[in-house]
Structure formats: structure tokens, C-alpha cells
């Protein structure tokens, strides 16, 4: 979950990282009031969860409160990469002398957090790392307290920083790293980290990401920022179909039958589990199929849950048939999934023999499952038929319209 810039700055400020004076406005009136309070020149920044704000016209400067009001009016109406802004951040314009970069992420190879520092701020760090590797330094640090500030000192000093700047930058890096640890973040970035004309440092822009797994433990912070449980902030907002899929999955605790992602196709997919779904989805597309959805079933879902998922998928306009494919299952039961899917098809008013293009789930309780499939005349196959071949047969059937 990505935080808006104004939220990220609130988190940083609370932990002692200096930020510019100002606040977030939701109307031109409010922007004018904040600009007046701040005094002098201000910068107005659209609050969207996407890059490219400057280019799109989402960042403007104003010398007077009246000008700030006019810019805020325009920015609040401006969509950037399909997103309407959450608000407009109004901040004192800072006289910048030099820009740095400060970031913290996890390094999955070292299995530790890594702090990244650069004396070339304001541009994408990946680009700096590629074009000017000598201007990027990295330092891993322990996940256990107490925090070892000297590691951040070594990091900053490794790029030749000394004097007063070394102490100031070490403190900012340390605070950023500790914010990362304290709040279950997976990315904490200050870019640019600006040195002002007077020598002090402030966070001019910031990007913080919190993983979903950390949200329960960070309830207090999220409440403080006004971020509710329903606000998922995925790459794109969930569709009504996907929300109903999540409801099916949450309807009882037994297994998984949901995690639905909507696509624009005619072949409904009842597929699983994590890795199996990816493999089957690729196979369907490779054979020219047009999946109507991605989903995951696994962990031995109940009949009710498999039934609910099937009904949901069949309710989607344009779905002609469904395919039911999984890898060789261990704890999920073939007969239970077969019951759920057939029940879902029948309760939707269709004939399972006609609506289910192929059923390929081998594994535990398959003998019992195959009896059920035979009774309803469903075309099924066992473990001797590869997943991809099952996918191909399903695609052919939909194409033939039979």
C-alpha cells in the first residue's frame, strides 16, 4: 500500500525528519488559506499515487495566496494517469542548494534491509545506479534494535561527505531507516532530500510503501492518517466483480476460493492454487484463449465456497464456458471441488456437461471426484493429461462454441 506524499511526510515529520511548512488542501479556498499561513512563495503539488506529476502539470508555484488558489483549482480538476487527486499539498517553496537521495528497501538476496544513499537526488535512483554507479552507495543493516547509527555514517561518508553535512545526513538516513523498521514498510524513500541555502536538510518528496501483512500491526498509525481497512490502494481499484470475489472468499474460513481478477474474455476460470493459477493462465493465453478472470482456489475450500465462486464467474456477462484446472492437489480434495463447481453450474441454471469445458484436477480423493463428474457427464481428465493440454482443450471447445 502506497502512501500519498502528504501522508508520508506526516509520518516522517513525526519521527523527526524535517519537512517544509504547509498542509494538504481539498478545495481552492483551503489552498489559499494555507498559502496565506505559510507566507511567501509556495509550491502546490497534486496528491496522486503515480509518477510524472511535474510533466502532467500537477506541480505549480505561486507567489501570492490568490495565485495559489487559482493553481489549486486547476490541479484539483486535473487527472494524472487516470487518477483524480486526493488533494493538493501546499508547502513553502524551499531555496535548494543541492539534492540528495535517501532510500531503504529489503534486499531479498542478503535477506536484510538495505539503506541506499546518493549525492545525485531528484531523479530516479535506478537511472543513477545505471549511469553513475559511483554516486550510489548501499549499506545493509540489522533488523534488531538497538539501531547502529554508525552504519549510516559509513554509508554517507563513503561518497566523500564530511563536515557538518555528514552528521546531518547520517541523522536523516538513520531516522528513515528506523521509520522503515518501526512501521512495517517495504519502501521508504526521500527523493529529493534537499540541502537548503542555509545548510539544513528537508525531505522535499517522499514515497513510502507498507505491505498488507503489516497493516494489522500498524492500526494506530493508519487510524491517525485516516486510512480505513477498505482502502486497499492496489495498482488499480478493484472492480465490483472482484469485490464480490473477495466476499465469496471471506464467506467462510475453509480454504481459498477467490482472489479474483477480472479480465475481458469469454472463458471463465476456476483454477488454483498460487503457482498453478499462473501456469494455467499462461497456458490458456498461449493456446489463444480469452480468460474472463484470474482466480485462486486452494487450501481445501468448502463446497459452498467453490459453488459461490463458480456462480460468480458464470454471472459475468460474456462468459460462455468455464474450465476447472489445478495442479496435482495435495490437501485440496478433488471430490469437494467437483461438488462445489457442479452445484454452482446447476444453481446458475446450466447443464454441467455443457458449461464445464474441462475438469482437470488430479490428486487427493480423485476417484470419488471422477464418479461425480461422470454422473453429470462432465468432460474430465486425470494426471496423465498435462495442465497445458487441458487448457488447450478448453480453449478449443469455447472456439467451437459446442
Amino acid at each position: 500500500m502506497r502512501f500519498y506524499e502528504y501522508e508520508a511526510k506526516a509520518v516522517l515529520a513525526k519521527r523527526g525528519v524535517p519537512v517544509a511548512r504547509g498542509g494538504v488542501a481539498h478545495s481552492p479556498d483551503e489552498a489559499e488559506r494555507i498559502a496565506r499561513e505559510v507566507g511567501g512563495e509556495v509550491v502546490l503539488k497534486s496528491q496522486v499515487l503515480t509518477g510524472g506529476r511535474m510533466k502532467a502539470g500537477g506541480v505549480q508555484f505561486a507567489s501570492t495566496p490568490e495565485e495559489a488558489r487559482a493553481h489549486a483549482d486547476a490541479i484539483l480538476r486535473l487527472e494524472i494517469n487516470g487518477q483524480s487527486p486526493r488533494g493538493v499539498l501546499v508547502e513553502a517553496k524551499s531555496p535548494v542548494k543541492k539534492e540528495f537521495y535517501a532510500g531503504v528497501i529489503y534486499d531479498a538476496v542478503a535477506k536484510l534491509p538495505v539503506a541506499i544513499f546518493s549525492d545525485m537526488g531528484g531523479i530516479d535512483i535506478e537511472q543513477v545506479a545505471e549511469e553513475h554507479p559511483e554516486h550510489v552507495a548501499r549499506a545493509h543493516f540489522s533488523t534488531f534494535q538497538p539501531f547502529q547509527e554508525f552504519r549510516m555514517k559509513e554509508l554517507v561518508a563513503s561518497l566523500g561527505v564530511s563536515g557538518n553535512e555528514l552528521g546531518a545526513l547520517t541523522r536523516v538516513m538513520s531516522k528513515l531507516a528506523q521509520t522503515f523498521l518501526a512501521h512495517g514498510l517495504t519502501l521508504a524513500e526521500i527523493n529529493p532530500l534537499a540541502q537548503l541555502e542555509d545548510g539544513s536538510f528537508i525531505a522535499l518528496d517522499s514515497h513510502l510503501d507498507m505491505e498488507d501483512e503489516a497493516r494489522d500491526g500498524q492500526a494506530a498509525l493508519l487510524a491517525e492518517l485516516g486510512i480505513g481497512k477498505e482502502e486497499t490502494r492496489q495498482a488499480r481499484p478493484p472492480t465490483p466483480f472482484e469485490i464480490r470475489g473477495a466476499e465469496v472468499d471471506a464467506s467462510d474460513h475453509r480454504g481459498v476460493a477467490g482472489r479474483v481478477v477480472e479480465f475481458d474474455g469469454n472463458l471463465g476460470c476456476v483454477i488454483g492454487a498460487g503457482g498453478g493459477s499462473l501456469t494455467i493462465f499462461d497456458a490458456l493465453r498461449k493456446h489463444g484463449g480469452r480468460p474472463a478472470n484470474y482466480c485462486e482456489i486452494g487450501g481445501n475450500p468448502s463446497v459452498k465456497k467453490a459453488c459461490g465462486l463458480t456462480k460468480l464467474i458464470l454471472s459475468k456477462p460474456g462468459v460462455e464456458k468455464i474450465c476447472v484446472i489445478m495442479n496435482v492437489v495435495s490437501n485440496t480434495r478433488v471430490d469437494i471441488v467437483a461438488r462445489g463447481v457442479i452445484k454452482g453450474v446447476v444453481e446458475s441454471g446450466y447443464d454441467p456437461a455443457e458449461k464445464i469445458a474441462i475438469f482437470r484436477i488430479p490428486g487427493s480423493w480423485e476417484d470419488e471426484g471422477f464418479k461425480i463428474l461422470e454422473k453429470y457427464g462432465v468432460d474430465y481428465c486425470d494426471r496423465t493429461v498435462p495442465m497445458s493440454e487441458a487448457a488447450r482443450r478448453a480453449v478449443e471447445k469455447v472456439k467451437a462454441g459446442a
Partner: protein
Amino acid sequence: MSILIDEDTTFIIQGITGREAVNMARECLDYGSKLVGGVTPGRGGRDVHGVPVFDTVKEITSKQRVDASVISVPPAFVRDAAFEAVENGIKLVVIVTERIPRLEVAQLIEFARRHGARVIGPNCLGVLSPGKSRVGGMGGAAVAARRAYQPGPIGIMSRSGGMTTEIANALTAAGLGQSTAVSIGGDAIVGSAYAELLPLFEADPDTKAIVVYSEPGGPMEAQLAKYVKERGTRLPIVAFMAGRFMDEMPGMRFGHAGTIVEGKADTTSEKIARLLDAGISVAEEIADIPGIVKQRLGEVKG
């Protein structure tokens, strides 16, 4: 031979009285694994399918050798369970639980590393060495596991537990048995990545080739390619890459927690290029894997 576990491996299950763990205990016993005890705080003195349950790990390790522990407790309790296992001298910790905060995963791995212990998972199904032992639930019921997994020369490393069995099944059907199959876990950070397990397989004279199941997201495939390119390996490696459709869908998480395309390096096309460049074969389909393995084994012999 095998890696990580063998017929003498003794292990416990932390959280043994949970719904899934009770089942796993039964399946491990049926497979012939040496499951010597379980731990659930407050349930000491009971038994699960004849396996004694204790309140603490220490009660078991103080009396007998314990080589491994399978952790199957709710996410909030995993880190401490891992600390408890490692502090009590257990050197192999297999974590089944998913949805553990990444910081806690990093902490327990860092702690295990300082104590010379190895972590497999989180979010994995464990380790299986056909005909010898199984530590975790991979393969399901013993009869099903025996059907999919047969002893032989192929090592498997997989980010998906379910697909580990699918691949083993394809290999078995083609007459290629397995030395050890490791479900390494689907999280962004796992205790043992491909490149860390490869040396163990290299040291196992009975392993003649490796099959790898991989996905978008994370640096694990690049790390393996780099390792093989720099150090070389006697083992032919055949990889399968799932989730090719995700290359067009940056920022969307599918399947496992670690499966997300955040940058170019996370895409399947980039990963496939790196694997191929290191001399690792990449199969288009699961069904193609046995043929490619046989071909690569033929080259080694020839």
C-alpha cells in the same frame, strides 16, 4: 542420498494441534517420517495421532536429538516459534505459515543465521525425499505422495508447493525419480533461495540434474543465474517460468506474496534471458521438462 533430510531425520511440529497441522502430522507419520513430538502451549500432555504434545520445545530437545521443526502456527506467533526452535539448537526450521510481516521474516532469518540454523519458507510446503522422509505436508496423503514422488536423480526447487508435486508427477511419469524436492516458499524473502540450496545438491552424489519452478518478482532467479555463471555447476538445470502474462501488468500481485512485477528485473522475459545466458534451460511447458532433463543428462554422459 538426499539434501536437508534423510531417513534418520527427527523433527517436531510447532502448532501440532491446529486443523492443518493435525492432518500434516498424520500424513508425515504415514509416509514413515520420524515425527517425534509436537508443541502447542497449554496443550502439553496430550497427543496427536500418538505423537506426544508439549508446552515448550525445550521439553523435547532436552531429552532427545531433534534435527528439524515444522512451524505451523498463526502469523503473529511464527517469529517467536522460530526463535524458540533455534535457541533450542534445532538447525532446520521449515515455516509453513503465510502472511507473516516481512520485517519478522527478516528478523527470524537473521537470528537463525547467527545460530547456524537454516530456514526453509515461509509460505512453503516443506521438504520431501522420496522413500526416505517428508518434513511438511508436500504431496498430501502418504499414498498420494508415493504416487507423485519416486526416488531418483532429480532435485527440485520450487517457489510453489503445489507445482512441486505437479512437476514431480511429470518426472515420475517419465521414469525420472527425485533425490529431494524443496518447496522454498512464495514470499518476497525466504530462508533458502535457489542459489543457497544448489551447493547442497552439488554435494549430493545421487543428484544428477535440477528442476526449478520460478515466477515473476524478486531477485532469486538472477541470483541463481549469477551463481551458475560465476562458479559453474556440474548439474544441468531446467527451469520453468510461470506467470508470463504478468509482464504486462506491473504493480499487480498474483498468487504468492512475492509475485509482483515492480521493475524490469522482475519480469519473466528478463529472468528467462538471464537464466538462458547462464546455460540454464527454460521449458515452455511442464510437460516438456522431462524431455529436456533427459536430453541434458545425455549431454553430461556423452
